[in-house]
Every structure is written in structure tokens, then in C-alpha cells.
């Protein structure tokens, strides 16, 4: 086992090192045109090593170098008061709270829809096509309508963003749970029939526990999607807080370093959420005697 861990450590660091090299090279390559142009205009003497130095330390680079992002992350996470508008913890919290609310709403909606679809034959025919159709509308088109529409009736802040998250994440949950609730063996359903079990006993003692693997699979997908929804919800109509707002102001003012920092925080958050969901899944699996 030990050699396996060492070798995966080695391979991960190799990939990281490789990425860093390419990234630094790309920074030079992408920023060079702007820099050379500037040198020419100001009649500055330059050689390749100056070009490299400068392209890794620009204020508003086209492509920031990794260490610039790390400095910015350090500055905006550890060197700010948490409540400050400059703190990425503050913005991250704004985004994560609407992510969680949206995930909860989408989760409940998705599960309820699945329960309906599995138990009521007419819902199966009438609702399922609409659910699928709902996902063919690009979220970027619908997000501003939700924000503006709800804003017009005085609903602002967290809720509109959470609704966008919910809109995105109920879908995998509904589809996964329809499959999960239909997953019991016919013989298990027959067994319940011989006991003359009621509909709700059938649900709670058979369909629901049988569907947990499907539930967690779709939870893991939708919690990440929910985060994307929250960020997209922060883009339109001048939201002032959240990672999406940071991305937007960053692109207004050409603050590419700020954009990259926000992106990195967002992906760390997404990875953390999926990881926590996996932990929860492991716990539930243990209680349900799954062979790990």
C-alpha cells in the first residue's frame, strides 16, 4: 500500500509541476504582445529576460502567473477582516449560503417530483417531458429574468440566486431518484405484497432505502451544479457580493488576478462540497451495511 501512496504523491506532484511550467510559459507568451508594444511606444531597451520578468509581474496581465494569484489569494483571504468587501471569505460565504439554500430547495423539489412520477402514472407522462424541456433553456438566458422579475416584486438578495441554483439542481436529483425509487427487485415488491404492506410502508421500508445509492450519486452532481447556479445568479444586474460579483467587477476593470482568485476559491469550494457529500455518503453506507 505504501508504495502506492508514494507513487500517487509522485504522480500528483509531477502533474502540478508540469502545469506550473506550462502556465508560466503561457503567461510570458500571452502577455508578451502587450509588453512589447509598450516597450516600443516608450522606447525602452528590452531583452528576453526583462520580458519574462515583466510578464510575470504585471498589474493587469492577460494571463497572471501562478505566484501572483497566490499572493492575491493570501491578501484577500488572510489579510482582510472577514466582514470586509475585499475578503474572499466574505464573498465565498455569500455564494455558499445561496448554494446551500438552492441545493436544499432543488433537492426537496427533485425528490418530491420523483416520488410523484413513480407513484402517479399520469405524472409520469405529463411532468417528465416538462422537466426535460426545462433544462434545454440555457441558464444564462433565464437567470437575468429570474433576478429582474423577482427584483420587481421586491424579492432580492439570497433567494433569487438560490432559485437559480434550485432550477439547475432539481433535475439530476429528480432523474436519479425516479431511477432509484424504481430500482427494487420485483421479488422485493412481491414480498411486500404478501405482507399486504401499505403504499407508505412500501415507500419507507423498500423504495426509499433502495434508492440511496442513486440519491447520493445525484446529490454529488447537483451540489456542484448548485454552486455554478449561485455564481451565475450573481452575474446579472449588479450583485455587489459573492464570487460571481467578484468575477464581474474583475472583468469590468480588467483585474484578471482578481478573476483568477475568485475562480480558484470557487473550485476549491466545489471540491469541498463534493468531498463532504462523499463523507456523508460513506457514513450512510456504513449504517446500511454496504460492503466497502
Amino acid at each position, binding site marked *: 500500500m505504501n508504495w502506492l501512496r508514494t507513487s500517487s504523491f509522485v504522480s500528483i506532484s509531477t502533474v502540478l509541476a508540469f502545469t506550473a511550467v506550462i502556465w508560466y510559459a503561457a503567461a510570458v507568451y500571452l502577455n508578451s504582445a502587450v509588453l512589447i508594444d509598450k516597450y516600443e511606444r516608450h522606447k525602452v531597451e528590452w531583452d528576453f529576460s526583462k520580458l519574462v520578468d515583466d510578464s510575470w509581474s504585471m498589474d493587469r496581465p492577460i494571463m497572471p502567473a501562478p505566484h501572483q494569484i497566490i499572493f492575491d489569494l493570501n491578501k484577500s483571504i488572510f489579510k482582510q477582516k472577514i466582514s470586509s468587501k475585499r475578503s474572499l471569505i466574505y464573498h465565498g460565504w455569500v455564494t455558499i449560503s445561496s448554494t446551500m439554500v438552492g441545493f436544499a430547495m432543488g433537492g426537496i423539489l427533485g425528490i418530491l417530483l420523483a416520488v410523484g412520477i413513480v407513484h402517479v402514472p399520469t405524472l409520469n407522462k405529463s411532468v417528465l417531458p416538462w422537466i426535460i424541456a426545462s433544462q434545454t433553456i440555457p441558464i444564462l438566458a433565464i437567470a437575468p429574468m429570474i433576478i429582474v422579475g423577482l427584483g420587481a416584486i421586491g424579492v432580492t438578495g439570497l433567494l433569487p440566486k438560490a432559485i437559480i441554483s434550485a432550477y439547475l439542481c432539481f433535475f439530476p436529483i429528480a432523474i436519479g431518484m425516479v431511477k432509484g425509487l424504481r430500482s427494487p*427487485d420485483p421479488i*422485493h415488491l412481491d414480498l*411486500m*405484497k*404478501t405482507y*399486504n404492506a401499505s403504499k407508505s410502508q412500501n415507500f419507507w421500508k423498500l423504495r426509499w*432505502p433502495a434508492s440511496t445509492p442513486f440519491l447520493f450519486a445525484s446529490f454529488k452532481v447537483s451540489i456542484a451544479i448548485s454552486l455554478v447556479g449561485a455564481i451565475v445568479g450573481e452575474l446579472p444586474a449588479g450583485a455587489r457580493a459573492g464570487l460571481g460579483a467578484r468575477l464581474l467587477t474583475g472583468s469590468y476593470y480588467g483585474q484578471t488576478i482578481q478573476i483568477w482568485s475568485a475562480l480558484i476559491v470557487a473550485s476549491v469550494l466545489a471540491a469541498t462540497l463534493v468531498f463532504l457529500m462523499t463523507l456523508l455518503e460513506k457514513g450512510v453506507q456504513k449504517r446500511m451495511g454496504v*460492503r466497502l
Partner: protein
Amino acid sequence: MEESTRVVESCKVDLVFETADSPVHALSKIDLDINKGDFVSLIGPSGCGKTSLIRVIADLEKPTGGEIKVNGFSPEEARLKRAYGYVFQSPALYSWRTVEGNLKLPLEIMGIEKAEQSKRAAEALKMVDLTGFEKKFPWQLSGGMQQRVSIARALTFYPDLLLMDEPFGALDEIVRDQLNEHFHKLWEQTQKTVVFVTHSIPEAAYLSTKIVIMSPRPGKIIDVIDSPLPKKRTLDMRETPEFLDLSHRIREGLRAGHSYD
């Protein structure tokens, strides 16, 4: 008076499965009466409709013709009254429940109180010789042990009628002997009515008061043998001339069924 002791009464029962290509005649004109306290074995080649017949009794399949009564009611009414315990051909345990949890399943559904549930689960587990395995999950048990748990599960709610589809099929010879003996005692003490599917001639001869021989395509009853053996049986009895004679008759019957092919 005689009516009240009839547990199963079937008259010209037919069962046809409509399949994509051609209809399958699983049961044809089944006439079978089972009285209270009978131990009836269904024996016959694979595909002759043994499972189909007990599924009809259990109301898991609706007959396409004829009439059948269980305890004087339609199979559906009998099922709604929880008239029988059913042991499937495979264990059909819930993987997310422990052995104990599986045994309590029918009791939870029937609304039996907690303390009584534990008592009955322990009792049923003892009956199949699995005491000590309460906290194990099904995958931690061998196939034969799982099947014994599924037998125990059917005993927990004290049904008067047991429908058992090859319950001992997955067991080795020794455990099978033990369970046969155990099960014979249980039946003798409790006066349960049992409908029992088996492929084993000695098992059918040892346990049954009535042996029903079936043949396939279409599934039908070709002979019913009333056992000449005394009601009380012992494993040693299997060496006696009466027992060997009975086994011989069953084998002859089965052979006659096969020769139609």
C-alpha cells in the same frame, strides 16, 4: 363442516402468460384440494409450473381461468388478511437490513410492538439455527444461511399457511437433513398447512402427507400420492421399505411426466 378445513380449493385453474412471441401455458386445469394440516409437496421438472401454482395461491399471479379459494376466500382477500407466509426461491433479503432487521420487517409492517418483535426474531432465528448472527448483514452470510434467514422471516408472524418455493434448494445435504427434521417437528407441533416445492424425491417423501407430481408444457398435475407413512417421521425411516416404495412411486410418476416430451 368439511368446508371449514379446506385451506386451498382449486377448480380447473388455468394460467397463461402473454409474452411477446407466443402465449405460455404455465398452468392447465389444476384441480387441487389442500386441507388444514396437510403438508403438500409439488414436484416436477423445471418449468412445469410449480412456482406459478403457489404464486396463484398467494395472489401474486391472477389465474386466467378456473376458480381458486384460499381459506374459503378469493386469493386476494386471503392475502389482504395475511393468511400465508411465503418463502421465495431466492432469499430476497434486504441488503440494508441486518439479519434481525430482516426478520422484523413483516412484524413492523403488521404493527407488532417492539419488545414482541425482538422476542419473535430471536425465536425464529433459533429455529433455523442461526442464533448469534443477528447483527450480520446478508452479504456476510453464505447462500444457505441467507435462505434459512428467509425461512425464519416467514415464521415470525405465525402464519397458518406456509407457501415455500424450494426453500432448501441451496443447502448442503447435511444441513438439509437437519432442517428437514427441524421443519417436520415444527409442522407436527403447530399444525400448519404447508405447500412446498422441491426437486428432491427423498425430501418430498420424508416431509409430505401428499405429493403432487406435475409435468410441463402445459403445466399440469399428473398424479397425487397420499403418503402411506405415519404422521410422525424420523430420518431413520428413510431406510424402511415403505419409504423406499414411496420414493419409487414418485420417481415413476416423474418419469411418466417426462416421457411426454
